[in-house]
């Protein structure tokens, strides 16, 4: 019994033309020796292409991971997509995994074991050199921090009222100097606020807020802070944390519910933010993925899905998916598999969500957004709101426009609404109503 719907499969397509080709392939027949099942749960088949021998296509449904002997460099290729479409449509029977499928799984397991093997320990000389580099970096960073701190003080000393007349250049000059000082994190933060003076009424207040938070960061850079807060500050300052180091932290296993996705573009790079909430722990997580121009964003976390997985956290809310133990579709009414938060009523009150936000801010005062899974009604008006059964309401972010689709879907009744809380209000991401996953 397939656990994915055809829509969920379609969401995996890297682009529209792949999906089109896959839909045709799935309709055309021409598949042989197909089957599904085994461990890890897979679906496989042979597809007659233009060549002599048919393509071998196999999908590991847990990761998901794809293998196809076709020459396409798209991922997943049309054959893998077509196969999954057939499977999701219930047209592929359970069977034992054939030899070639088992071989592929074994090969992957060996490769990932080799990758996971610890690198050779560093020699003493290497360690020394690394330590020296770290000190040099620290010094450059400190000078960047000092420069920013001085600049911020100058702004409030001379007054920020005219900043909207100065244009981006005012910020760009500083950002360039911070990049020279090898403080890319600070440079990025400065660039991110460059648009505020041209963002319409109330910009002065928003700009002072951001200046103040940057100032706080420069204060944190030189302060003696508790470990966790210090780590958060370092990462906000732009210190990169190697993936291995994150993966070495104790994993948090839970059924992670993917409550919403938000894509944006930074510097030609596409960024996908996946907001997760643990069904058992209630813990929030943010998984980022990046794509270069022309590449498709990672699609292994689908909205409405619950992944039984180990997550490893960066300082703060950001996390990595370390190991997946399975992939199930999250039924909103059920609220995840039994024993792992199943049967629980999904969504929290506004008060509970705000309480968790306060905790989040205590860990990372520089948060720019926070996921909320609310049980409430969406209310139209001059300003839209989400109101819960206690009568507590949160305004929607005016920038995200009217949410007629969500209002239509819920009829104004109570529903589970996933949203990102920005300081300007809620940005609704997903609504779960009557077992449907609805996007704006």
């Amino acid at each position: 019994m397939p656990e994915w719907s055809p829509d969920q499969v379609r969401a995996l397509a890297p682009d529209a033309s792949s999906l089109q080709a896959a839909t045709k392939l799935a309709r055309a027949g021409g598949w042989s020796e197909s089957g599904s099942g085994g461990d890890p749960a897979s679906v496989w088949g042979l597809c007659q292409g233009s060549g002599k021998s048919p393509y071998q296509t196999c999908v590991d449904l847990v990761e998901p991971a794809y293998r196809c002997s076709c020459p396409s460099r798209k991922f997943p290729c049309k054959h893998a997509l077509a196969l999954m479409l057939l499977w999701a449509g219930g047209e592929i029977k359970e069977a034992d995994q054939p030899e070639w499928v088992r071989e592929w799984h074994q090969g992957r397991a060996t490769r990932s074991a080799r990758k996971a093997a610890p690198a050779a320990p560093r020699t003493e000389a290497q360690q020394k050199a690394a330590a020296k580099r770290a000190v040099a970096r620290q010094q450059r960073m400190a000078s960047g921090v000092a420069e920013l701190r001085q600049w911020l003080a100058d702004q409030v000393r001379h007054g920020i009222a005219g900043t909207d007349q100065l244009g981006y250049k005012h910020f760009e000059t500083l950002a360039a100097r911070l990049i020279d000082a090898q403080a890319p994190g600070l440079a990025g933060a400065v660039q991110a606020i460059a648009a505020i003076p041209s963002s319409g009424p109330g910009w002065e207040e928003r700009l002072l807020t951001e200046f103040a938070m940057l100032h706080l960061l420069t204060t944190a850079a030189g302060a003696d802070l508790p470990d966790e807060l210090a780590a958060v500050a370092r990462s906000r300052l732009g210190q990169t944390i190697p993936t291995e180091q994150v993966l070495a932290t104790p994993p948090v296993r839970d059924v992670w519910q993917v409550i919403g996705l938000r894509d944006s573009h930074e510097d030609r790079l596409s960024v996908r933010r996946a907001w997760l909430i643990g069904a058992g722990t209630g813990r929030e997580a943010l998984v980022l993925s990046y794509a270069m121009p022309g590449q498709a964003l990672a699609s292994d976390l689908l909205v409405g899905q619950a992944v039984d997985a180990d997550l490893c956290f960066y300082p703060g809310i950001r996390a990595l998916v370390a190991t997946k133990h399975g992939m199930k579709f999250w039924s909103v009414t059920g609220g995840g598999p039994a024993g792992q938060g199943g049967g629980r009523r999904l969504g929290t009150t506004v008060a509970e969500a705000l309480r968790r936000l306060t905790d989040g801010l205590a860990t990372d005062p520089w948060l720019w957004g926070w996921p909320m899974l609310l049980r409430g009604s969406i209310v139209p008006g001059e300003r839209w709101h989400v109101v819960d059964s206690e009568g507590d309401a949160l305004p929607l972010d005016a920038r995200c426009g009217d949410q007629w689709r969500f209002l239509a879907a819920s009829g104004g009744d109570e529903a589970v609404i996933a949203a990102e809380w920005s300081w300007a209000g809620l940005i609704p991401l997903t609504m779960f109503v009557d077992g449907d996953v609805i996007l704006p």
Partner: protein
Amino acid sequence: MTTGEVWQQLLSSALVGLDKRRVALSEVEGPLETVLAPGDLGPDALLSAAAAVTLTRRGGFTPVKGIEPVVAPAGEARLAPAAAGARLARLMSDAEGFIDRRTRRELIREWLELAAERELTAPPHLLVALADVATSEAALRPLVRAAGGSRLAWLAELGPGRWAWALPEAPSEPDEREWHTGAIEVRARFLLACRQRDPAHGRRLLTESWPTEKAVDLAALMRACREGLSLDDEAWLEKALDDRRGQVREAAAELLAALPGSAYRLRMAERVLACCRPEGDKRLLVTPPAEFDAGLRRDGLTNKPPYGMGERAWLLLQIVSVAPLECWTAIDDDPSKLLARKVNDDWRATLLPGWARAAVVQADPKWALAVYRSGYDGAPGSTTEIVALLSPEDAAEVARDAVQGRASRMNELLAALPRPWTREVSEIVLGYLSKPEQRQRGGWSTLTYLAETGFSPEMLDNVVEIVRTCEDEGHAAALGQLASLLQIRSKIRREFQ
């Protein structure tokens, strides 16, 4: 001072600059009491205080109170089955990317029709997208309204004005206040409802308010009186023909032309027969009106021909377009006999569009057939209107001739016939498509394309049978595409069960 007051101080100093306006905090109350000490602040301290205020506000956000949910009335209608709903979602979001726009729209229409037949509603989360489709495509509105049920009406009341067409029908007990104070659309709707039950009352209301109405509103209100139109209305409409406002005269002429037995229609019949006289059995002698007289002007005609047409031809065209079709029996019992007559000079080119227009406005299937058969090749869209009037038997007969004739005209006809085609028409088309040699003729691919939505899905087996037995590979492949679309359509049907 409160947190809010602290913030105002910080902000006003930061705005003009600390050099010009210093910040002096007094005793701070609230959560920041122990954080901010009273006294003068330097730039760093100002920014630190601003950060403290920011975090206090972010971490201590107070929920808004007094917001009440706005809940839709409980719907009585049944929702379409989940599989059907998911299909519509895919059609709307273009997730089945392989279908072109026109086909997609046809499939959406088909979905809506199937839902309407079963009195089922569309998934609520699709209503906004459906409403927007129907806002730009008025022909879909009745179907979208049906599929939207009470939820859509509720949404239209709250939503942006562009969905006003989806507002619930005027309440069964019309409220006369609407008539006096409402916007023109509301008033026209009220008048229409009023005319449905009591035409005389509606007439009275309009006559009373007549002197104060603007011309454009009057025209709209008069058109609402088409409902319940009878000879009792003739007097005021004739009076309206004397109005000095063109829009009012035009509306009056329109209504009188649609009123059986009106003096207006008699006048037009007299005029048209004065212009066209039979000469024996085979010829028709046409003499258009010589001049644009006051009578013609009063009856709503104009003397401003469209570009490229002479004034006399224009007058003739207008008269023929509005004259009651039954008046032609004075010359020939059967329209096809009349249309076969030879006409002097080039007047036939003027008569034909006039007859076509009259056939459409007066919805006359017999005339529609005669006009179509005469080879009428009118303005875009007018063929569709003519063909839509044909009776199923006539349509089949015309189609049978069409597949023997010019491919472009065949496709024009088949594109215009209401879909799905009748069994007879479908079989004629299938017969044509089954012959591989037809593929060499022009228009073949257009025809298979039309058949994708023209055939009823029950034809799937027949098409598959041709594909199976066909020896020409190219032919089979071309029909395979048709088969796969019919497959989708029959799936759509099954999903409703």
